[in-house]
């Protein structure tokens, strides 16, 4: 007997959208005490399916056009709002991707949990408080009494997500919907939250509908998997079966795109040092009085004594969790931020003390690819001009620069006709290609890529990584590759530098770091990689 049964669900999009239905003829069922993972890339309709169950579709444009969501004999798609309000939070509850925005910033955690009880159950204040304390204790939050009176911003991302889970489970719901609950978290935190969800699900016999884009997470947590593409469920089955022998070509291609954790074979290391970073220090200061007088209120040591060296043709990965200082180091190297101390030696010259004018000739030698393909291109400038701008600034003639831009568009796998179009006419992956073309236009020796694929779907990510590899080969580039994803790092980097709290805690050849990490933190990071027991493209996955 299923707890939740979605039959022939159609969710209509407003007229004039790319396709008439966001979700088309979806059939899913969820048994009690089971975790069903719905996997898909962005735009596959997985989140809307979850929202349809909760009756939280963005009204009035998007609505259920056909089909039923059967929850214990009741059709939720047709249920009136009053009934849905009863169900939400008590029988079906939900946790969201971004715990900071899902919690009310001006209410204490205790009060927010208390609300769940007040709205759904008749309980005395004292009893409600005891229950809330017990819940916080259940989700392993330290010192529940203190957490009760804390505001969301006083907790870390992982603690906030734990508080969200406590709230969601307050009334022992039969179904828990988790919409990418760990995507915004660091890997080590993600591993803890996944463990917690699994543990809570076992303890409460809850059916969990878990939305994710990450096959690693699926391998870790799911009992069954449903794969969605363009609004359709293309494949469904037990986790072990889907992961080891996927049948649908789309599932196969998705899995083939997941980078393997086995580092790629090592290449010989060149003797030629292209870039050296020595004892780099950077402190962020904020606050202080009028006109910058007085002592800064807050100081963050974002990079401390960072030393790196980059040889010709090699890719150095800087890995670490958010706040580890990896982006700061990248930005100091390309001189977007000014480091406080240390040396950045490129071509025998120290870039750190150079002023803007003195720096200009060096700008072309070191270029950057940014993380967000949507924010990194000026929405009001034509693609051709975006790419040609660099060479023009460095003194190339207009005509030459434009010819070069056309050529580069071809190199990064876009049509030269893209030249006259605006960035918004392109998809995320295509935009990232434009970003790469812009960086290459100046023929740099060093390319600094700051999380270039983390905003992209796996299949696109795979293509961009391949592109970067090809270009590095063809142009004999050296690359600094910032990433939080160890899978990506394993496939791209020759060497790895692991950062934590602004310091490099371990550095070495990728294979060595993966095989025998020496620092505790590196071990913890490697341990936390989701789905480490599963290698894509092989059937070594063992069902847990």
């Amino acid at each position: 007997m299923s707890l939740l049964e979605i039959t022939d669900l159609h969710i209509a999009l407003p007229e004039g959208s790319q396709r008439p239905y966001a979700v088309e003829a979806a059939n899913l069922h969820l048994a009690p005490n089971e975790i069903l993972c719905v996997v898909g890339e962005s735009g596959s309709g997985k989140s809307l399916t979850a929202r349809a169950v909760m009756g939280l579709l963005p009204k009035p444009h998007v609505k259920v056009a056909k089909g039923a969501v059967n929850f214990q004999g009741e059709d939720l798609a047709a249920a009136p709002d009053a009934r849905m309000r009863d169900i939400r939070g008590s029988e079906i509850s939900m946790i969201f991707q971004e715990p900071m925005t899902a919690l009310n910033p001006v209410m204490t955690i205790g009060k927010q949990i208390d609300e769940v009880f007040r709205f759904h159950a008749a309980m005395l204040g004292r009893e409600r408080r005891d229950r809330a304390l017990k819940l916080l204790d259940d989700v392993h939050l330290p010192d529940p009494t203190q957490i009760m009176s804390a505001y969301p911003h006083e907790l870390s991302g992982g603690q906030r997500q734990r508080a969200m889970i406590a709230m969601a489970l307050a009334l022992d719901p039969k179904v828990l919907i988790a919409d990418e609950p760990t995507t915004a978290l660091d890997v080590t935190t993600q591993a803890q939250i996944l463990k917690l969800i699994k543990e809570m699900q076992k303890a409460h016999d809850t059916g969990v509908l878990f939305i994710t884009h990450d096959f690693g997470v699926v391998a870790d947590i799911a009992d069954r998997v449903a794969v969605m593409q363009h609004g359709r469920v293309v494949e469904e089955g037990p986790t072990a079966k889907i992961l080891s022998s996927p049948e649908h070509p789309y599932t196969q291609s998705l899995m083939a795109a997941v980078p393997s954790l086995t580092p790629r074979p090592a290449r010989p290391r060149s003797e030629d040092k292209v870039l050296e970073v020595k004892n780099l220090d950077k402190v962020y200061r904020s606050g202080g009085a009028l006109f910058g007088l007085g002592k800064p209120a807050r100081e963050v040591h974002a990079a401390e004594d960072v030393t790196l060296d980059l040889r010709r043709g090699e890719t150095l990965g800087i890995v670490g969790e958010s706040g580890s200082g990896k982006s700061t180091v990248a930005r100091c190297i390309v001189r977007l931020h000014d480091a406080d101390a240390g040396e950045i030696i490129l071509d025998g010259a120290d870039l750190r003390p150079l002023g803007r004018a003195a720096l200009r000739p060096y700008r072309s030698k070191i270029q950057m690819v940014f993380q967000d393909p949507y924010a990194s291109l000026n929405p009001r400038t034509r693609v051709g001009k975006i790419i040609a701008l660099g060479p023009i600034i460095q003194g190339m003639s207009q005509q030459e620069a434009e010819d070069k831009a056309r050529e580069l568009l071809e190199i990064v796998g876009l049509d030269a006709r893209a030249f006259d179009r605006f960035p918004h006419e392109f998809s995320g992956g295509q935009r990232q290609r434009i970003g790469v073309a812009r960086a290459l236009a100046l023929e740099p020796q060093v390319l600094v890529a700051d999380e270039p694929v983390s905003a992209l779907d796996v299949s696109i990510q795979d293509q961009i990584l391949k592109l970067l590899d090809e270009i590095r080969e063809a142009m004999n580039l050296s690359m600094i590759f910032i990433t939080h994803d160890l899978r990506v790092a394993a496939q791209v980097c020759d060497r790895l530098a692991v950062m934590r709290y602004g310091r490099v805690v371990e550095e070495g050849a990728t294979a060595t770091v993966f095989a025998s990490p020496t620092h505790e933190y590196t071990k913890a990071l490697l341990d936390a990689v989701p789905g480490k027991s599963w290698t894509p493209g092989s059937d070594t996955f063992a069902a847990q």
Partner: protein
Amino acid sequence: MVGFWTRFRRNRSAVLGLLILAFVILIAATAQIIFPEDPFRLAGQAMAPPGESGFLLGSDSLGRDVAAGMAHGAKTSLLIGLLATIVAVTVGVLMGALAGYYGGWIDDLLMRTTEMFQTIPSFIFAILLVAIMKPSIESIVIAIAVVSWPAVARLVRGEFLSLKNREFVQACHTLGMSDIRIMLGEILPNCLSPIIVIGSLMVATAILIESGLAFLGLGDPNIMSWGFQIGAGRTLLRSAWWVCTFPGIAILITVLAINLVGEGLNDALNPRLRERT
């Protein structure tokens, strides 16, 4: 551009505002042709009600034609509104851009200056400035611009603050682009929409301030304006209602029309509101 017009057209009242505004501009542009004579000329019988003695909208206590005054006044109002706004927006954009882009002590200096201007009630400040400089078109434009630019500066500063950390701006830094070029070529085009909207609304405020000044006798004495007409007819409100009423209605409708157009521009240019139904 086509998309912009489609979105603008969706807001019916904005289209109405645009029509009214076009009509006012037409009157102002053809004032010389419809009423070739000087509007200050004593045209005939004093205090003639609308429609009598050849006065379409009546005449005032000295026998000046109210309709002619309104047509010529439209020119004054629109001219001053537009000029003052251009000056205020230019100064405001410059200040805001520098403050937002450079931050630090430049920001502190410029923003404290801005706040100093904002602490003085704008109309009283405008009166003071005109009184000091002696009333003329230039002094009125300067006074209105001086009291209006702080709002623009604050807006532009905010936009620059958020845009300067966007990755596309940082990408320009890595290309070695100069600050001026980044500010003018990259950031400014991306905050044009709010500037256009605040500018359009500012024209309406400027017209109001100008009318207020002229009403108090601080307008340029040689130029006909709506505020001056109202001021002149103020004492006759009970015996000759038309002298005040028609210019008053003209101000009301023009300011309303400009506000409607501003709203429409806001809806059409602001992508966050585009999905609103």
